[in-house]
C-alpha cells in the first residue's frame, strides 16, 4: 500500500477545460481579427491561412494569456506578426500593397489602439442591419459570391455574364453597404 504511486490530484483546469475556454474566446474574437487581417493581406485565402496559423500559435501559448478580456487584442497581435511574416516573404509581389503601406496599416491595428477592435465589431454589427436593407436580389448575389467559395470568374460564367460586369454589380452593393455602415456609425456616435 505504500508504493511509489502518487494519487492524481484534481487540477483546477484540465486540458479539456482549457480547450473549451479557448474555443469560447476564439470564436467571437476571430471575426474582428479576420477584418483586420483583410487590410494587410491580398486575398481571403491568405486571411484564412494566417488566421489559422495565429489560432494555433495562440493555443500553444494560451497559458501565457494573462487576462481573458484581452484575448482579442492578444490574438490580433499574434495575427499581425504572422501576416507581416507572410507579406515580407512576398515583398516582390507587385500585385500586393507596398511594404511600407502594409506596415502603416498594421501599426494602426486594433491591437495597438484602444477601442479600435470594438469599432470593427460595431461596423460588423451595423453591416447586419445594412444587409437587411439591401434588395433581396443583391443580397442573394453577395451570398453567391461570398458563401459559395467559387471564383468570381466561375460564377460569372455560370450566370452568363462577364467577370467585369459581375464585379461592377457586386462593387455597387458593397459601396452601398459601406456608405450605410458609415451612416449608422455616425448616427450612433451623434446619439451618444
Amino acid at each position: 500500500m505504500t508504493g511509489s504511486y502518487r494519487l492524481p490530484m484534481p487540477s483546477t483546469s484540465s486540458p479539456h477545460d482549457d480547450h473549451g475556454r479557448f474555443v469560447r474566446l476564439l470564436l467571437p474574437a476571430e471575426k474582428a481579427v479576420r477584418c483586420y487581417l483583410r487590410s494587410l493581406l491580398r486575398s481571403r485565402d491568405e486571411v484564412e491561412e494566417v488566421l489559422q496559423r495565429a489560432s494555433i500559435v495562440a493555443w500553444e501559448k494560451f497559458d501565457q494569456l494573462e487576462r481573458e478580456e484581452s484575448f482579442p487584442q492578444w490574438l490580433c497581435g499574434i495575427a499581425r506578426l504572422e501576416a507581416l511574416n507572410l507579406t515580407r516573404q512576398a515583398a516582390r509581389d507587385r500585385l500586393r500593397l507596398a511594404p511600407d503601406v502594409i506596415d502603416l496599416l498594421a501599426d494602426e491595428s486594433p491591437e495597438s489602439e484602444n477601442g479600435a477592435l470594438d469599432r470593427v465589431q460595431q461596423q460588423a454589427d451595423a453591416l447586419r442591419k445594412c444587409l437587411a436593407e439591401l434588395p433581396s436580389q443583391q443580397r442573394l448575389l453577395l451570398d453567391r459570391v461570398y458563401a459559395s467559395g467559387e471564383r468570381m470568374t466561375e460564377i460569372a460564367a455560370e450566370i452568363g455574364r462577364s467577370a467585369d460586369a459581375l464585379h461592377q454589380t457586386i462593387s455597387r452593393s458593397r459601396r452601398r453597404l459601406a456608405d450605410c455602415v458609415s451612416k449608422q456609425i455616425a448616427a450612433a456616435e451623434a446619439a451618444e
Partner: protein
Amino acid sequence: MSPTNQDRPDDDNENGINNDDLMLLYLDGLADEAEVATLSDRMRSQPQFRERFRLLCVIDASLSDVSSLELTAEEAPPSKSQGSAVDNVPRPAARRRVASLFLAATSLTLIFGLLFWQSGGNSIRSDVATPNLGVVVASPEETSDESVLFATGQAVQVGQWELTAGVTRVRLDSGVDLAFNGPALFELHTPMSGTLSSGEVTATVEERAIGFRLEAAQLEVVDLGTSFRVRVDRGEASVDVLDGEVEARVDGGNADRLLASESLTVSRDGRTVRGLAKQPDEPTESTSQRSPYEVSGDLRWLEQMPSDLRPQRFEHEYVLAMRERRNVDLAAIISTHAAVLVPQPGRTPQADGSLGFDRLFASNADDAESSWVDVVLLHFDGFGQNALERSDATGVIRFDRPIAAVIIDGRALNATDIVCGDPNTTYGTKPVREFDWDSKPEMRDYITISGDRRSLSVQLKVSFGVDQIRVLLPSDAATKDEFDQ
C-alpha cells in the same frame, strides 16, 4: 439606404476609376500593377483613404463569414406577401412533397421569372440562382426519378425542407452531415446555419465547420466540434450531445456548455432541464448493454462522467451509475476521516434505525480486502426542484466482485471528492447529497446488500437535493501490481 459620398475620401476619377473601385478591384484580386501602385500611393498619403479601405475590408471579411449574411426575423427582408423582387427569382424548391398544385405553382413562378428576365426589367435578373450547398447521400426512397425531391444524389440549396418519414442524410459542402429522422421540417439558411421547426436531426460536424448553428424553438445550439442531436416536438426542444461539446443558449440568454452524454431540454414555457443524452444506438430501455456490470430496474450505467453533478444540473428519471476513478489508494480515502463503511448483507437502515455497517478506520485499513479500489458513483437527481416534486427510483447493480466499502454520508462524500472524484466534474458541496436513513420513513432511502456482497439494491427518494452513493470495489490485481512497482 441611398449611396452617399459624405464619408468617402476624395472621389478622384483619375483614369476613370474612383477610389472605392480601386480598393474593391484590389480586394477582388483584379487590380493590375499600376492600379496597385496608385492605391499604395493614395494609402500612404491619405489617412481617410486608409480608413475607407479598412471599412471595405470589414465588409469584405464579414461577408466571407457566411453566418453574417443570415438575418434575424426583425432584419429579414419583406415576405412574399409584400411582393419583394426576389419572388420572381426561380429558386430551387427544397420540399420533398411533390403535389401537383406545388408543381403548377413552381411552373408559373418559372414562367413569370423567365418573362421577367427577358424583359430586362431588373439589372440583376433571374440568372442569380441559389447555389448548391450539398447533396443527399441517403434517402428512404431510393429512386432515380428526378421529380422526387430529396432522392439520393440530389443537390440541396438554402430554403425550407419538408422531409417525410424515414432517415434522410444530407452532406453539406461546409463539412456538416445532417441525418434527419422524418417527418421533419427544416430550413437551411446558410451552409453554416439552419432552423429545425419539427422532427429530429443529428448533426455531425467536421473541424472546419466548427461554429455551425442550429436553432430549434427557443433553443440555439452552436457546435464546438462535435456530433449532436436536436429534437423539436410541439414546442419543446432538446439537444443531446453525442460527442464533443456544444454551446447552448435559451431565448438568446447566456451560453451554456454541454459535453458529450449531456442533454438540455427546453419546454414550451421556457423551463430548462439538463440531463443525460440518449445515445442513438442505445435506446433507454437497453442501456445496460454497455455496462460493465449488470443493472436493472431504474438504474442505468453512464459511460462518461458528467461535467456537473450539483443538484438540478444533471436531472434524470433513472439512478445513474458511473465509474469515477480507478486504482485509488484506500488508505488515502480513509485518511480523509470520512465515514467509510463496510456493508453487511441485508437491508439498511434496519428496523431499529441503525445502519448495521462497520466503520472503516485508518487503523484497520489493512483489514480491507484490497488496498486499491475502483470507485463507482451512484447519482440520483430526479426531475423537480422543490420538496413537493419528489422522485422515486428502485434498481439493482450487480458487480463482478464483492463490494469493499461504501460512502453514503454527505460530509463523507464531500471529504472524499478530492481523492475519489473525477477532476473534470463539479460536485455539490452542500449537505444535500446524502443517503437519508434517519429522516421520516416516507423520505427514507434504503440500500440492500446481497449475501455475497456483489449486488447493491437501492430505493431512493429525492426532492430538491440529490442522492449519491460511492461504492468502492477492489481493483484488479494486475493493475494493483502495476502501481505497486
